[in-house]
């Protein structure tokens, strides 16, 4: 039976909410301490920890190697930026060739399909080997011999394949009625693509596009297998090979993280913002 007095007041509800929040903070703190503390204890009490600490986390070696490794990492970043720029353009070209139905483009279309299938299907490390050692072996004039150029070509082949598929998914996700509206206004097909379809498609695939670039940034290390280039991983390897200390590897890893973690956070925020713009909410409400 409803009475004159409400059963609960606003103060009651606020109090309950505060209790719930206090409880969840307590639980999460406790579980963090237990899990992280347990893992740390496990590592520190392991029988080999002493040796690991000396070979991987030596401050002396870190200090001695960081300069060389950082110089190598600069080459990584340079290579990454160049490959990324080329991949962005080539990937879009490949995606357009595959989505357009112009008869002239048919041979190119077949090439694009083979390209995407081949270089998405073969591990990047193999492509780097094949291009790095196979291309110069052809003995053609004008073929570059520098390890970073050859490695860059290999990475471009692989990542163009991935990125073209990302673009293509974006183009296909734009509803055909958008193209229809553009044509109805008197735009030509290329104009409709340029001003209506592509801007929407690219905006939509920005997060997956950036994700691919985070993994490209890491895969630049594969160039080291070609020897010549003194990029970060290679420099660290040289230290490791001559002095049996792996601290330089940790130094290189830290440098990678300095770039990839901010990038990852940026992608996360971008994705969340897009989700909100599309009116999407997290699947489970506020609790």
């Amino acid at each position, binding site marked *: 039976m409803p009475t004159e007095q409400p059963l609960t007041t606003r103060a009651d509800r606020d109090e309950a909410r505060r209790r719930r929040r206090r409880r969840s903070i307590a639980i999460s703190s406790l579980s963090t301490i237990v899990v992280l503390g347990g893992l740390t204890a496990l590592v520190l009490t392991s029988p080999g920890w002493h040796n690991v600490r000396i070979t991987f986390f030596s401050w002396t070696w870190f200090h001695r190697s960081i300069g060389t490794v950082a110089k190598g990492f600069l080459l990584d970043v340079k290579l990454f930026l160049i490959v990324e720029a080329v991949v962005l353009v080539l990937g879009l070209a490949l995606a357009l060739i595959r989505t357009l139905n112009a008869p002239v483009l048919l041979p190119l279309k077949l090439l694009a399909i083979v390209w995407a299938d081949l270089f998405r299907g073969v591990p990047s490390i193999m492509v780097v080997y094949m291009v790095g050692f196979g291309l110069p072996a052809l003995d053609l004039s004008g073929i570059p011999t520098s390890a970073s150029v050859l490695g860059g070509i290999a990475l471009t082949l692989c990542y163009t394949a991935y990125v073209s598929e990302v673009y293509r998914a974006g183009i296909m996700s734009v509803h055909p*009625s*958008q193209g*229809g*509206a*553009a*044509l*109805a*206004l*008197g*735009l*030509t097909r290329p*104009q409709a693509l340029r*001003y*209506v379809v592509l*801007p*929407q498609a690219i*905006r939509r695939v920005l997060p997956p596009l950036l994700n691919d670039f985070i993994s490209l940034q890491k895969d630049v290390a594969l160039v080291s297998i070609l020897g010549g280039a003194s990029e970060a991983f290679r420099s660290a390897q040289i230290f490791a090979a001559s002095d049996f200390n792996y601290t330089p590897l940790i130094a290189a890893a830290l440098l990678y993280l300095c770039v990839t973690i901010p990038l990852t956070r940026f992608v996360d925020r971008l994705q969340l913002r897009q989700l909100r713009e599309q009116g999407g909410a997290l699947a489970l409400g506020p609790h």
Partner: protein
Amino acid sequence: MTAVLQLRGVTKSYGDHQVLRGIDLELLEHQAVALIGGSGSGKSTMLRCIDLLEEIDDGDIYLDGEPITVPGMNPVPTRRRLGLVFQAYNLFPHRSVLDNVIMGAVRAQRVPAEEARDSGRKMLERFGLADRSRDYPDRLSGGQQQRVAIARALMTHPRALLLDEVTSALDPELVGEVLTVIRELKQEGMTMLIATHEMSFARDVADQVCYLQDGRIVERGVPEQIFTDPVHADTKRFLSRLLEANRL
């Protein structure tokens, strides 16, 4: 006087399904013709065929006396002379309201951007949307979006405006504002072909009403006759079904 639009024996199928089975129609200057009929009767397809968004199978369509459906002909110049407004508005979500409105003028007709923006603002003002020109379409109500879409179609000064069930996606309380705009256009002498489910609207704005069923124009006449004294049994059945559903 030559008709602005003329259709002769137009047919269109998708695979085995024949959507238009020989349409003959004339749309005279300053005339408004309403197309009524159930879903799937061919109204939308007819409008899309006229705007050359679909290729017809047989027959001819003329714009100002010139054939526009000759095989191999470039459809773009014809589309620039016609305006089409869609049921789902189809505004460009990545562009502001003003940019939506001037897209056709700037890109298709190569009007200088500054000039297009000026006339775009004037067009929006006329539709009571001047204060929304910087907003993105998703910030607008359905009725406002559809008015922007009509403004966008008018920017290129079309010879005829093709309206494809422009109020069907709207909440009932927003239908009125869009119909008012179309009534005003009619008073200004706009030539219009209007596919619609709004019978009372068809009745007071159209000069002629065509009832479509299974891709044919079953009956045509002045609104008064079609709605009060339909001749064909199919038309009678359609209207009485609407009456039962309280939509007349």
